[in-house]
């Protein structure tokens, strides 16, 4: 099975003046293509920090990362931005849609901005993605007139726009009611199954974690060994 992501020995130490906070103390993560993986752990355990590092939004203090066969440590900020644009998709707890644009424009944005405009191909893809997330009839709605769940589904469609190798989601259902959360989760499962998208989802929600292929648990800045721990109590 091919690997989408391999991260080894990720260390993250925040410095605030004299004060040092070691949030990650040597984290190894591996994701195979087409996996749906939950990242869990207590609040403050460093989940968001790890996602930011794996999403090339934050540079770790130490560690090696390879995504889609490419080492990313040496990349310039510009190259990292281009890499994020081409290879990664993001879904956040808050949808962060652009309020002045329609659902379709929001979805097409990550492709349109670098290309200088929404081409007919982009429009077609954006519309089919909206169809995929069940919002074909909302394509021309301004983002502000969508419900919370609909916005989050548009955000997922947007994350998929540039056919990313890896989709990183930080508590994508954290801000939604049960029903909307269920829909968003169903959707990610579907995309994962049908299109083979690789997902790394950080969540507090046991339902979400339960529906993933496997889970990575962060404890005290390290990955807790999972191997059937619940089945074989000490």
């Amino acid at each position: 099975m091919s690997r989408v992501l391999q991260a080894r020995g990720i260390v993250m130490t925040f410095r605030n003046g004299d004060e040092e906070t070691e949030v990650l103390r040597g984290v190894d993560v591996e994701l195979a293509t087409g996996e749906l993986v939950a990242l869990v752990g207590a609040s403050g355990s460093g989940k968001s920090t790890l996602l930011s590092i794996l999403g090339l939004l934050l540079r770790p203090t130490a560690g090696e990362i390879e995504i889609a066969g490419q080492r990313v440590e040496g990349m310039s900020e510009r190259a990292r931005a281009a890499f994020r644009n081409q290879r990664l998709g993001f879904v956040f707890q808050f949808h962060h849609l652009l309020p002045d644009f329609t659902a379709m424009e929001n979805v097409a944005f990550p492709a349109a901005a670098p290309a200088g405009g929404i081409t007919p191909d982009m429009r077609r893809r954006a519309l089919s993605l909206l169809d995929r997330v069940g919002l074909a009839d909302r394509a021309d709605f301004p983002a502000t007139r969508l419900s919370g769940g609909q916005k989050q589904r548009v955000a997922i469609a947007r994350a998929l726009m540039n056919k990313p190798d890896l989709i990183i989601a930080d508590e994508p259902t954290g801000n939604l009611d049960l029903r909307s959360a269920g829909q968003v989760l169903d959707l990610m499962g579907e995309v994962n199954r049908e299109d083979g998208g690789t997902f790394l989802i950080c969540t507090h929600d046991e339902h979400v974690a339960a529906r993933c292929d496997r889970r990575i648990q962060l404890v005290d800045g390290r990955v807790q060994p999972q191997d059937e721990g619940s089945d074989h109590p000490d």
Partner: protein
Amino acid sequence: MFALKVARRYLTSNPAQTVLLVTGVALGVTVFIFITALIEGLAVRLTDEVTANSAHVSLEPATRLAEILPGDPAVRTEGVALVSTFQRRQIRAWRSTAELITRQPGISALSPQISGNAFLVKGEAVQPVSVTGLEPEGLDAITPITPNLVAGQGALGADGLLIGTQLAEDLGLTAGQPVLLRTDRGGERLLTVRGVFKTGLQSLDSRVAFLSLQTARPLFDLPEGVTNIEIKLDDPGRAREVADFLAGATGLRATPWQDKNLNLEDALEAQGRTGTLIQIFSLISIIIGVASALVLSAYRRRSEVGIMRAFGISGGFIVAVFMLQGLLIGLAGGLLGCVSGYGLCSFLASLTDAEGNAPLPIAPERGGYVAVLILTTIGAVLASAFPARSASRIDPLEAIQQ
């Protein structure tokens, strides 16, 4: 261009704020145009008043200086210059000179003259006058006299004299009466006042007498030459240039009208500086207005911009979005300001007082429209550079974590 679309969308998403911003820019532009048109109009009016009644370039014989031996350059040579007095100062070859001048483009009129000082004597009354002897057919070439006659007529004839109202009053003269002219060359002749004019210019109306060139010759002892040649141009603004050229071409001393009216030039320059100051301040206020609006807008859109950065959209794109907003605001405000500025100036220029004169000498066509449009647009784009740059540097994490 997608950045342009985003910039437009940002501007239209908050129409009230954008309208306010564009109006502010337009107001600044209107002030700029008003001041420019006023200063220019004032300059035109003052210049017109001066140039309408006097020569634009005057040609006289160059002052002959006694030869000076080269010496210590530190010694100011004026200190030892001696004006040669051996020869009569006159333009002998005035006919060929006049011909040469007439061949130059942009010359509208030319008048060879004999100018000198004299006294008008009537009974016991004596008044000093500046006498101008000119060709009768060129009487109005430099100063419009015929249209300003209040008595008599403009035909000079062999013994005719035209004087101003003030002078006529001082000597108790009216058209048709004889008067004795005694020149500083010792010439004396009884002449007839043919007409009395009133130009409204104190110096002309009280001190000048016109007679024909032929009449002046014996009186000033100049059988062939003239003392000066006065020239009018199509464009008085070129006087300096033409004077320089003529001085070189004829060897005569050429004086542009500006040099005879240094006070006017100083006044115009002072006015111009005041205008420039106001123009600069209106541009600065435009730039500050646009900059502060865009700084606020960039601040409000931090999280949006941050998310764009998270999606790997380049800093250049974000810079473009904000600078294009500046450009659009500058263009819209500039164009609107040009329209309102022209409207305001045209309205003010159309106002007339009881006598039918415009109280404000505004020149609406001289509002500096192209300049202000370009300056405003450049200013607005520059004003957006700082907010654009800071927006492009927003850390995506900040946007996501809030």
